[in-house]
């Protein structure tokens, strides 16, 4: 049984870490970008961002004033049990979100869509989102918080098999060019692409590809992994850099996730996880141990399984 107080306390720490500490994989990616950037203005911007991450950590203040919309992903081993049950878990995550909003502090971004009611704590109807995943082994839970910006850089389109890779590339470039101008997407970003599923799951796949995979990770399907490399290069060949200034760094990495879709369609979504790619992860065990990390490690073989029954051997054979 995992103690509910430990969950809330850990969740508060995660909110703090996500808002303040840029994950190492993104930092390394941005340092590499800064080393190659030649545009006067975009070089200045990248250096300012690197200084900003340092300032955030030194001062323990949020790296960006727009602290995004905090959300939660909960991954559970099949044998995990939560003290008080799943509703207690959700209450703990809502409490942690509200407390950290005033504690860090975060910007109270969440408002009612029509009445603009602001509870000043990032909690409200459907907020924060809490999504779940499961793994066949283990009695632990992983708490993952992502504070993604909310307004620009994301789009969806229903494509069809006849659009092919050429159509996928077109929509990808359209998104980068459209939202890259003036730096609306706060690039260079981790670009997540969702392919397939239905409209809603396609958006979910793309968002998770952007937020729950790290810079340098590759899809387990080698052909998709090759596309990821190709799309990263393609995005960086536009000639656009940070803030939409002339430059060569638009995409820190490109992650693609797929889901089976209707035979007539080829849904596509594009998401940009910005210069403040905020995510923090902790694994909690029933004996009270907590281990913090920054890699959500969401897309395990189990999450990408293709077979009816779960069979690790069969999955490996198809991969």
């Amino acid at each position, binding site marked *: 049984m995992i103690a509910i107080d430990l969950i809330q306390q850990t969740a508060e720490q995660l909110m703090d870490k996500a808002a303040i500490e840029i994950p190492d994989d993104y930092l390394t990616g941005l340092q590499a970008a800064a080393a190659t950037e030649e545009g006067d203005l975009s070089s200045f911007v990248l250096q300012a961002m690197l200084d900003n*991450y340092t300032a955030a950590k030194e001062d323990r203040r949020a790296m960006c004033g727009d602290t995004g919309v905090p959300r939660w992903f909960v991954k559970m081993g099949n044998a995990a049990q939560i003290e008080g049950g799943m509703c207690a878990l959700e209450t703990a995550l809502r409490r942690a979100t509200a407390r950290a909003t005033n504690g860090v502090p975060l910007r109270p971004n969440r408002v009612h869509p029509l009445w603009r009611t602001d509870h000043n704590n990032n909690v409200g109807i459907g907020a924060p989102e809490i999504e779940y995943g499961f793994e066949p082994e283990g009695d632990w839970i992983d708490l993952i918080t992502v504070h993604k910006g909310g307004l620009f850089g994301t789009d969806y389109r229903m494509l069809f098999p006849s659009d092919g890779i050429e159509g996928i590339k077109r929509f990808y470039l359209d998104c980068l060019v459209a939202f890259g101008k003036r730096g609306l997407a706060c690039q260079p970003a981790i670009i997540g692409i969702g392919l397939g599923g239905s409209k809603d799951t396609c958006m979910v796949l793309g968002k998770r590809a952007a937020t729950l995979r790290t810079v340098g990770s590759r899809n387990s399907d080698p052909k998709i992994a090759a596309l990821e490399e190709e799309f990263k290069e393609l995005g960086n060949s536009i000639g656009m850099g940070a803030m939409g200034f002339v430059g060569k760094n638009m995409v820190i990495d490109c992650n693609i996730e797929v889901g089976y879709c209707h035979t007539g369609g080829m849904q596509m979504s594009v998401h940009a996880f910005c210069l403040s790619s905020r995510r923090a992860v902790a694994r909690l065990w029933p004996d009270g141990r907590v281990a913090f990390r920054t890699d959500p490690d969401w897309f395990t073989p189990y999450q990408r399984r293709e077979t009816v029954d779960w069979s690790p051997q069969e999955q490996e054979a198809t991969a």
Partner: protein
Amino acid sequence: MKPREVRLSTTPTPEEIANLRLGDIVYLDGLLYTAREGVYMRALEDKANIPMELASASAANFHCSPAATIREDGSFDMGAVTATASFRFAKWLPDWMAKTGAKLIIGKGGMSSKDYKAYFVPNGAVYLSTVGYGTGALLGRGVEAVEAVHWHEELGLAQAMWVIRCNRMGPFIVASDLDGNCLFERENAQISKNLDRVYVGTKPAVLKRFGETDDRNDEVIG
């Protein structure tokens, strides 16, 4: 070439503004205030009295909601500050500038050269963009004090009017000048020259959408 750095007052003289060039890096001293849709609607549409002396106290309007909280004792805790995209406020800015004498509009992404020529230049005002975006911690270091927060009960913390005393707050980038030139449009034009080449090997979607453009010189804002 390294961009030029300038220190600027939030109540700048006309000469100081005229001296600014596109792409200059600016650090601000003095009082600035946040105002976005909530403040604009309350002041311009509901005709509420603006609770500070503009523009003598401050001529710098920041399109920003800070990551901040009001402590129980009434003092403020302001961590990071970052701008929000300004193009959404074009509807109110001409009236706001006329009413308040704002000379520095600070935000994310700038406005169009059409906006600059129509009401920035006649008001002797320029646009400063934040950098990144998201140098919130660096900008937070430039907050010497939070002097006041107005209308937080009516508008919520994110939309309230925060009055900030800054000390070398920055960096910001000069994104418009008194000729109405737009830094972002200059960069767009440069980048557009390369786009046809980048799009080789792609094709338009078989299913079109209403309002769709294939002219990649277009912007999605505005």
